């Protein structure tokens, strides 16, 4: 293994966040081409089935992770599941933060229609979201973390599919609008009786 590949392997081992090629160039003083070649070398060394570790490309960079082959033993050793399950409320809150960041707790509550204190607290606690400043009204705003990208295997929040794809079709929306309008008029009718 080349010296540069060895250095990069050590850096990937030490860093908790994925490392981008530009970062690797900067701290090793090597060209992007050289770093690219070293990463190729590592990708080969860590090809699936070769070792206990795998090289993953995530969150705009590279990181090492344990191979799934070790999952049973890792669970026994670390005495905790790979991921604690996320409740529906936590997933919904996470989705809102992922799509709308920076977003404040009152905004999340408005969209969900229920108080968001508890899911926000547990997502913070698990490191999936973090504070990113304050809104113009002084409320703390949140964004997703690199851990979120790692856990969900994403390159960046921009990789999430367009949220509008889950909207009802225009026909369905029209039907919905008509029903709501009819309900409103029915109420108006009751009032004028």
């Amino acid at each position, binding site marked *: 293994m080349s010296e540069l590949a060895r250095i990069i392997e050590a850096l990937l*081992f*030490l860093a*908790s966040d994925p490392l981008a090629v530009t970062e690797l160039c900067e701290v090793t003083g090597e060209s992007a081409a050289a770093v690219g070649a070293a990463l190729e070398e590592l990708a080969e060394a860590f090809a699936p089935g070769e070792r206990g570790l*795998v090289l*993953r490309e995530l969150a705009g960079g590279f*990181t*090492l*992770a*344990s*191979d*799934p082959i*070790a*999952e049973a033993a*890792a669970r026994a050793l*670390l005495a905790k599941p*790979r*991921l604690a399950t*996320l*409740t*529906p*409320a936590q*997933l*919904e809150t*996470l*989705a*809102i933060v*992922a*799509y709308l960041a920076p977003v404040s707790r009152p905004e999340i509550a408005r*969209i*969900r*229609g*229920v108080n968001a204190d508890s899911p926000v607290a547990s997502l913070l606690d698990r490191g999936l979201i973090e504070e990113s400043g*304050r809104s113009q*009204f*002084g409320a703390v705003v949140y964004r997703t973390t690199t851990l979120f990208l*790692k*856990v*969900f*295997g*994403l390159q960046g929040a921009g990789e*999430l*599919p367009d*949220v*509008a794809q*889950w*909207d*009802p079709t225009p026909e369905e*929306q029209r039907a*919905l*609008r008509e*029903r*709501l*309008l009819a*309900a*409103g008029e029915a*109420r*108006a009718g*009751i*009032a*004028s009786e």
Partner: protein
Amino acid sequence: MHLAELELDLDVFSGPFDLLLTLVLREEVDLRELALAEVVLAYLDHLDARGDLDLEVTTEFIVLVAALLELKSRLLLPGEELEELLELEPGEAAEELLARMLEARRYRAAAAYLADVLADQPAVRFREAPLPAHLRRSSLEELEAAAWDPATLARALGGLLALPPKLDFSHISVMRVSVAERVAHLRALLRSAVALSFDDAVRGADRMTVAVTLWALLELYKRGEASWEQIEPFGEITVRRVPGARPGGPAGTP
């Protein structure tokens, strides 16, 4: 258990809770006809029979029933008052409701998508071990002096001194009537008559004034100045002066 397991046998509907929700949302069951108390009782029975309490499911149930209640109260609320509340025309209100529904639905779908993505991830784990000690704090300690500008601290503190803007209530109709005013009004009426009809006391008044007057009546009752009776639900309320009672000080300062 899952909420879908909850079987209901109500006046207007019989079947699983899930189906009821679907039918309500499709307006195939009229929410106005549905006794939500019966649904809650059925759920409590169900819990009793099972003997255990799944907090997740219970929370989901409470959220759903609360949503149904809100929806129902909106349906039952006379249009006039709803408009007063939202200050929206039926068309605008429908648009607003539609936008809200679409938004909530959008992120619920996004949440389902994220759940799928998560489930599809390979069973890999990332290293969480702390940095070796010699790399941990060296950064700051080896630093040349004055790397950071102290002004950033003052600016951060200044930000924390900012008071949030006062909430703007101008869109909500101002309460034009106070309990004290209505207490005075009832006392004046009771000085000239031993008994009077509540309807007469609030004749021609708006809804808010009627509500506040009822509150004022409770206040007088609490002070022992007046009593009332109502023979049947929604019947006439007769208010009586309590003999020997002396009107006290202003309302709210017993």
